[in-house]
Each structure stands twice: as C-alpha cells, then as structure tokens.
C-alpha cells in the first residue's frame, strides 16, 4: 500500500518539505504494509468495538457550575484582541 503523502498532509493540515515527504512516505507505507495483515482475518459478521466499558448514554444534570474566567481562558494565547481570540479571516 502506497500512501498519497500530499493528500494526507493536506487533510492533516501539516506542511512538509520534499525530504520529509520522501521519508514519511516510506515509513508510513511500511507501517501500512504491516497493519494490512489484518486482512488475513475473516471478520464477516463480527461487531465492531469502539469502547470497552459497556457504558451508554452517560448523562448529568445540566446546571451551570463555576468555570475558568475569560482572563484565564485567554492566558495562553499570543493572538488576542479586546478580550477575544483573534483568528485569521476565513472568508474572502
């Protein structure tokens, strides 16, 4: 299995230089070849397991509780404007 490194890097929002592309393409293809051994197993009709606790629909009362302040929420950003996060424009 050969991975399309350009496509995957774009989906993952990662920028790679040409050397990195070559290196990761080789390493990821090797790993994919290894995990491909699962195709040896007949899983027809086998249920999927996405969690192991068996817990379902865990709910709690929807009530407001003390939370962090606006100042605290902004304390780790380098991109702040008038008490808000400043992000790049997403529309032209």
């Amino acid at each position, binding site marked *: 299995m050969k991975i399309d490194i350009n496509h995957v890097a774009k989906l993952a929002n990662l920028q790679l230089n040409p050397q990195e592309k070559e290196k990761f393409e080789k390493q990821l293809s090797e790993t*994919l070849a290894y995990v491909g051994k699962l195709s040896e197993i007949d899983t027809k009709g086998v249920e999927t397991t996405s969690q192991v606790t068996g817990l379902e629909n865990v709910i709690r009362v929807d009530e407001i509780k003390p939370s962090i302040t606006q100042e605290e929420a902004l304390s780790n950003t380098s991109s702040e404007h008038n008490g808000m996060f400043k992000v790049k424009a997403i529309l032209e």
Partner: protein
Amino acid sequence: MKNLNELTIKEAKAGLKAKEFTSVELTKACLEQIIKHNQRLNAFITIVEKEALEQAAKADLLISSGQDLPLLGIPLALKDLFSTKGIKTTAASNVLRNYIPTYDATVVKKLKAAGAIIIGKTNLDAWAHGSSGENSDFGPTKNPWNIDYVPGGSSSGSAVSVASNMCLAATGTDTGGSIRLPACFNNVVGLKPTYGRVSRYGIVAMASSLDSIGHFTKTVEDSALLFNITAGSDEMDSTTLPAIPEDFTQDLEKSIKGIKIGIPKEFVTKDIDREVKSAFEKSVKVLKDMGAEIIEVSLPYTEYGTAAYYIIQPSEVSSNLARYDGIRYGKGRGSFGDEARRRIMLGTFTLSSGYYDAYYKKAMQVRTLIKKDFDDAFKKIDALISPVCPTIPWKLGEKINDPLKMYLSDVLTVTANIAGIPGLSVPAGFSNNKLPIGIQIMGKQLSEKLLFQIGSAFEKQTNYYKEKPNL
C-alpha cells in the same frame, strides 16, 4: 539506614507520623537527588522546588496538629501530560513548551487533596508517542541502570525518577504499554488500571478509548495505596466506571495458593529474548512453588494485536491532535515533531474516505475478537502472566530511525489496552549485563485487587525490587 528519598510511601508515612523526620526534610532529600542526577538522566522537565517546599512546610504543620491524610507530606512526581494549575505542562512537545494550565487534572486534584507534595513534571516521549523515551522534544531520558540504554517509554521520566529515588512515586499513562514497559526497564512497579477506572480529565489525550491513568511505585503495596486515591468515577470524564468502594491493600498479605494463573502461549514465543524467557520461566516457578495453579491458555488473536493497535491508536491520535491550532494556546502545527506527524498522518489516512472500512472498521472488528480471547480465557483462569517486553532494554539510538521496529516493542502490552483490562508490571530479575527484566500480571476488568495480591506475594518471595541502580 536508608536515606529519606529512598523510602517507600508506607515507610515515609510511618516516619512522618512518628516525627522521626519532617516532610520538608523528606522533600529536600528528593530535590537534592534530582539536582544531583537530573542533568545526566534527564528525568524531569520542570522542578517546582519553591512550591514543593512551601507545601511540605504546610504538611508539617498539619501533621504536628494531628491531621492524618493518606499522602500527607509525601513527595510525588507527575508525568508532564497531567495538567497542573500554574505549573507548565508541556507533553514534552515544542507545541506546548510554554503552556501553563489554568486547572488541575482530576487525578492531580485528588493527590493534592490526599496531602501529596508535587515536586516536578517528568519527561516523556512527546504526546506519549514512543516506547523508548527518545521522542521527547526536551531530549531523551537515560536508563539509570546504564545510561547508554533506553529507559523505556513513553512514561520514561516517571519510571526513572522512582528508580533513582528522586521521589517516592510518580504518575504515568498507559495507552499501549507506556507504564508497564518503562517500569519493567527500570526495576519498579507499574500499574495500568482497568480502562475507565481512573479519570482522564485534564490529562493530555493520546488515544481516548485506550488511555489508562496509572502510576510507578517502589513496591506493590505502595501501588495499591495510591490506587485507593486515584480510582473512582468523575463527572468530568463520562467514560469513568461507577465507583465500587474497595480497599486495594486488603489482600496484600493473602496467600496465592489455589489461584489459577494462565500463561498465554502466544506471548511466550521463539521471538522472546533468551534472558527474558529464562527470567519469565523462573517467575512461573516461583508462583507455582507458592501454590498457584499454572495453566497454559491460548489467545489466538494476539499476533494481530499490534496491527489493530497501530490503526486504532493513530486514528484517535489524529483526531485528538487536530485541536492544536496554535490559536487558543500552544504553538502552531509546524511545531509537531516527527513521531507526532507520523501518527497524525497515519490516522488521518486510516480514517479517510475510501480507506475507513479496510483499516479503521476492520481494526475495531479485530478489537472485538481480541477482547473475546481474554473473556474466554478468564472463564478458566483468575489471572494471566507474561513477559512485559520481548527484549531487555536496547541502546539509545538503536531503533529511532525504524518506527515500525520501535512499534513492535509493544507487542506484549497492547492487547491489554485493546481489551481494557488491568496489568501490573513487577520486577523479575536482571540480564547478564545487569539490566532489569519484568513480568506483567493481567486480570479481567476491575480485578486490580487480585493483581496486587499476586504481585505482592511474588515481590516478597523474590525481593528483586530491593535492588537499586548504582547512580
């Protein structure tokens, strides 16, 4: 007479209570050990000397006023994935190099409420991605038994800090072996609890359906003592199991006579190092001589465990690490290291349109089969034992350029995470070149008390845990 930093939690508690020494003295002894050896071993990313000593002084006041809390005045270290209010939490990644959380993880809250002193944050493979400790953006941690060798990962610094007496115990996370493997490589006790038994809230997420929150201690008894505090449900983590009030230290002195212990034949193959195999066989004999009934069992899907794991885990990693956009906190995506980028891309691929069924869905079906293997085995036996890693610790640099080879170091530990069952890694001897070897005891979900019972009996009989590295 032991130095104070060499004490177990149990011993230190007794000494503090009897006023043989103070928490400030105990904390200072640990800090001095860190200052002496951290430059060489690189176990800590952050040391919080001032705050630790302030907390210790407070603990001493409480002790002298007759207060008693389970960890009052005991210095602990935290893997640097655990959010600590006001203390840098880096995940050993450049992305979070300067990140200071505004809240404590639930486990940190519980440890503090029990009176523990936090002395620092330990090194790890960045984002907990790795089996050797070498993937840290803060430099590799070294094995205190021989600094040319890896300490195991990803909770490398926590294991090393306990092995080299820089603290009395340390926390860790285990997604595919990240507690059990470094415990094994450092001659300390490592607990990976049942999935959902300890809250994940406030701990940097790796793969959310696999992450288990545990710890490293010098003895099995200390492991049970700590588990009494960390286990329990948490409304901030909806995957936590309803709490069952239980004292995990209750059966530590109980005989293991008649307990049925299974040896999974697929775990003890020709691919296991000769020295690891011989230590394992000796361990089996010890348990047998103590009255345990040894039964060979089969877990036929074991050989597919690593393949399923290296689909499920990177898929969840790619989703969890998608939140790092460099806007609200941390640096941008250009700051991810190689291993994080590999896993993000691998997971992005296995979840992508056209490949989801062949990879991710298939792996989730195989997860069902692996879990069933364990369920079937536990109908016949009470617990399982196996080696922790197929090899003894390897040299720094040996596997770093071959990711797949590194991934295969987890082959004996990943299936416990896939099935969500607990595992306890305990010291089981040494190689000819004096590097530690361990065994893991696994049980069905929620069977930690039994694992402590078996581990404690084994430890008292063998005494390997008493051996310490020559620093």
